[in-house]
């Protein structure tokens, strides 16, 4: 009886599955993208989130962005403002301060999805929203302090007056223009609740909110987003009739979906971790195009320089000489993640080689530690003349498998050099929300900084950015690094724009960093992309601006 029941059950399941049919493989005019996150909200300026940025980049365009070659480019404007063209001009404001005015022209073909042209009215309205203290904008600084005034010249041309005459005057990547014809009434009704009542949240599929090659046509919260071509898009015609972005948070399940053909591609921006993709490539690489884009995620060990041992630069240098980063990169990452010798990526235009580097050299590490007074070894651990052990702690985000493995390798290699390192991990929200922010880590923390091309690392290297109770824990100089020379370089970099002088400053910054080693550079993280062989045109950027900003170039091979 039991056997009969089982047979019947299996037969029924098989029959049901057969009747239901197999999931259809995506046609070539449809692209299914699998990601590990789902955008929690849709307003382009409310909260920065990689998954949201990835999706919105298909349906919107910022005025300016960095392209895959890491060069600033115009996406919504016709031309970048420049001093030599007269579209940028240093000015002295009424209070005597030097500022700069920059003029942009909106692409004359730019139109919202409902046919309404994108105009300077939208620009002015966006500024009004952004600088309103109750709007909830997180990049308030740009709108309320950096932009002093905006003059509308005509329907399409406007001039922004910026607070400081900074070298990056042409960049307004975070100025995400809003459709005044849809959002003004909502905002003016009550600015304090605008964040929750914006049409981006209440009417997400309204065509008038979008002006990219695609527009959001359907949202199934937590599950998927469907994008369809936007008929009012002014650029190259997008190739797909439908782009579906699915959210599958579990990486093993995401991989299974890829193999089952229910997901076509997994982007590097918010996809699978590197170690998983390396294993995937070994097993299934022949069926997919797998490639790795080194980018701006700077994996490093943050040091607390208030720790007496780490305050000595010789100890910091020894720590770096004692680890074989090349071997680690080869063993753990198949050589896909390049070793970082500095805070600035070699892919960045402002990278200036010639600074000191720290190759794996255990003998030199030993000599440096001896010089620093950690010369006596007892039970394999170095001690100083006072009998204190060279014992440090290293923290990272608990549950991040890749970092935990790296942490153990570092611990083992430092042990060889006589440095005792204890692992103390915390959940991400504790580590970032409390421990680092309030500088409560005893000695070391392993995590990544993300930046933009040509980004001046003021917040992490300037002495005024050391979080203290007095400044309400503002700033990200968690190391407590103080160097007046570095402060000066960081300040000058903002306004010394003459190319040669600017290049010299960047070179000096990198030399100072390499000399002082406020933190230990490890690797530049590589974003792994898994694409189907029939898809072409995807160009990873390696920085915060998503590859989807150029999605109109993606198409199925003929």
């Amino acid at each position: 009886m039991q056997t009969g029941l089982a047979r019947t059950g299996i037969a029924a399941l098989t029959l049901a599955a057969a009747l239901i049919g197999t999931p259809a493989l995506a046609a070539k005019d449809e692209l299914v993208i699998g990601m590990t996150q789902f955008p929690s909200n849709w307003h382009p300026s409310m909260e920065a989130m990689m998954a949201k940025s990835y999706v919105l980049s298909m349906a919107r365009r910022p005025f300016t962005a960095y392209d895959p070659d890491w060069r600033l480019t115009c996406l919504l404007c016709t031309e970048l403002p420049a001093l030599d063209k007269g579209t940028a001009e240093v000015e002295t404001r009424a209070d005597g301060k030097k500022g700069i005015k920059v003029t942009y022209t909106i692409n004359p073909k730019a139109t919202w999805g409902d046919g309404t042209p994108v105009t300077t009215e939208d620009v002015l309205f966006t500024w009004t929203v952004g600088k309103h203290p109750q709007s909830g904008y997180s990049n308030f600084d740009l709108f309320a302090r950096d932009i002093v005034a905006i003059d509308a010249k005509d329907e399409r041309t406007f001039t922004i007056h910026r607070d400081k005459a900074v070298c990056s005057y042409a960049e307004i990547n975070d100025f995400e223009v809003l459709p005044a014809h849809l959002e003004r009434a909502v905002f003016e009704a009550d600015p304090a609740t605008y964040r929750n009542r914006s049409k981006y949240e209440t009417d997400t599929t309204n065509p008038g909110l979008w002006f990219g090659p695609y527009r959001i046509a359907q949202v199934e919260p937590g599950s998927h987003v469907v994008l369809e071509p936007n008929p009012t898009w002014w650029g190259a015609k997008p190739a797909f009739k439908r782009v579906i972005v699915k959210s599958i948070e579990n990486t093993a399940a995401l991989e299974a979906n890829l193999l089952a053909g229910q997901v076509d591609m997994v982007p590097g921006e918010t996809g699978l971790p590197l170690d998983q993709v390396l294993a995937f490539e070994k097993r299934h690489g022949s069926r997919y195009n797998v490639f790795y884009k080194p980018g701006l995620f700077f994996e490093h060990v943050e040091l607390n320089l208030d720790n007496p041992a780490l305050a000595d630069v010789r100890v910091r240098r020894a720590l770096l000489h004692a680890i074989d980063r090349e071997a680690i990169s080869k063993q753990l990452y198949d050589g896909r993640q390049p070793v970082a010798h500095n805070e600035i990526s070699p892919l960045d235009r402002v990278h200036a080689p010639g600074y000191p580097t720290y190759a794996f050299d255990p003998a030199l590490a030993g000599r440096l530690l001896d010089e620093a007074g950690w010369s006596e070894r007892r039970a394999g651990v170095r001690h100083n003349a006072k009998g204190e052990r060279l014992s440090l702690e290293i923290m990272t985000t608990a549950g991040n498998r890749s970092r935990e493995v790296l942490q153990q390798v570092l611990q083992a290699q430092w042990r060889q050099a006589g440095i005792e390192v204890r692992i103390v991990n915390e959940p991400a929200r504790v580590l970032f929300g409390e421990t680092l922010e309030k500088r409560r880590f005893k000695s070391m923390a392993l995590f990544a900084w993300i930046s933009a091309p040509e980004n001046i690392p003021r917040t992490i290297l300037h002495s005024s950015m050391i979080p203290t109770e007095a400044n309400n824990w503002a700033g990200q100089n968690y190391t407590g690094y103080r160097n007046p020379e570095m402060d000066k370089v960081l300040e000058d970099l903002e306004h010394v724009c003459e190319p040669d002088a600017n290049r010299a400053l960047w070179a000096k910054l990198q030399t100072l960093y390499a000399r002082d080693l406020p933190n230990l550079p490890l690797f530049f993280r590589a974003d792994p992309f898994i694409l189907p062989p029939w898809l072409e045109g995807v160009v990873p950027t390696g920085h915060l601006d998503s590859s989807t900003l150029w999605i109109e170039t993606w198409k199925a091979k003929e």
Partner: protein
Amino acid sequence: MTRFLASRLLQALVVLLLMSFVITVLMTLMPGDPVDMMLAGNPRATPADAARLKALYGLDKPLLDRYWHWLQAALMGDFGFSRLYAQPVLTILLPRLGNTLLLLGAAMALTLAVALPLGVYAARRPYGWADNAINLFCFAGISVPAFWLALLLILLFAVELQWLPASGLGPVGGEGWWERLPYLVLPVASLTLASIGGYTRYVRAAMMGELRQDYIRTARAKGLGEGRVVWRHALRNATIPIVTIVALEFGALFSGALVTETMFAWPGMGKLIYDSIMGNDLNVALVALLFATLTTLAGNLLADAAYAGLDPRISFKGDGA
């Protein structure tokens, strides 16, 4: 009965009130301020920005003030907005609740449909080869990690055989229940396989106890058919402890099944609660956890009511009789 219900209702209100306060306190004590988390990706944000946003979200007020403000609004039916999703809490919660009810309700029904006959069958032939085989199956089901089982099912039925979809609620644009049905099969199978074991063991143990009772011997002696003895008499009494377990599980219907929902990309309550706690989204976490509390209380109440139906000796009269 009315007095009993009124007293249970009063107890439930007190529990909910206490829970809401405890959740608020715990969420507030968690490290990582929601505004700081929001500004983490914006290195240019200043302390003034943080202060402005904290005031905007009411985070600058003392805890008791915030709680009182929330309670007053909640009593008027306004549960506020989610900080993460920028939507009214119920707008986010209700669809997820529906998804979870569908998933866990189907799994519960299937589990009981399989576990009851299996448990009864094993109890009637204890220690035989069939009982041993059922026990082995039960322990396997109990022991297998949920994520591993889910992944195994995905690999077998979605990747290898390509019979069923690996994840999601349904096909894009597909609204009909028949189109969504295949998407339900694997997550339900995963949950069912994991819980059948436990239920079968409960049923078996309860039935074995009942089948040894005098009244069963009497019923058989009176010449009643074996089917009637087992299914009408023994099972009815054996169901009482099962009802308790089902009632306790009822609360889980509203708190979701985090692992299964994550593995099958099924947007349900488990995932929502987890995300709201990790993202410090107090309004969502509060209401979702209160829902779970409420349904656990309701489940217990239903169980008590079911006892009376199953066993007439159980009474709600508080007269000490």
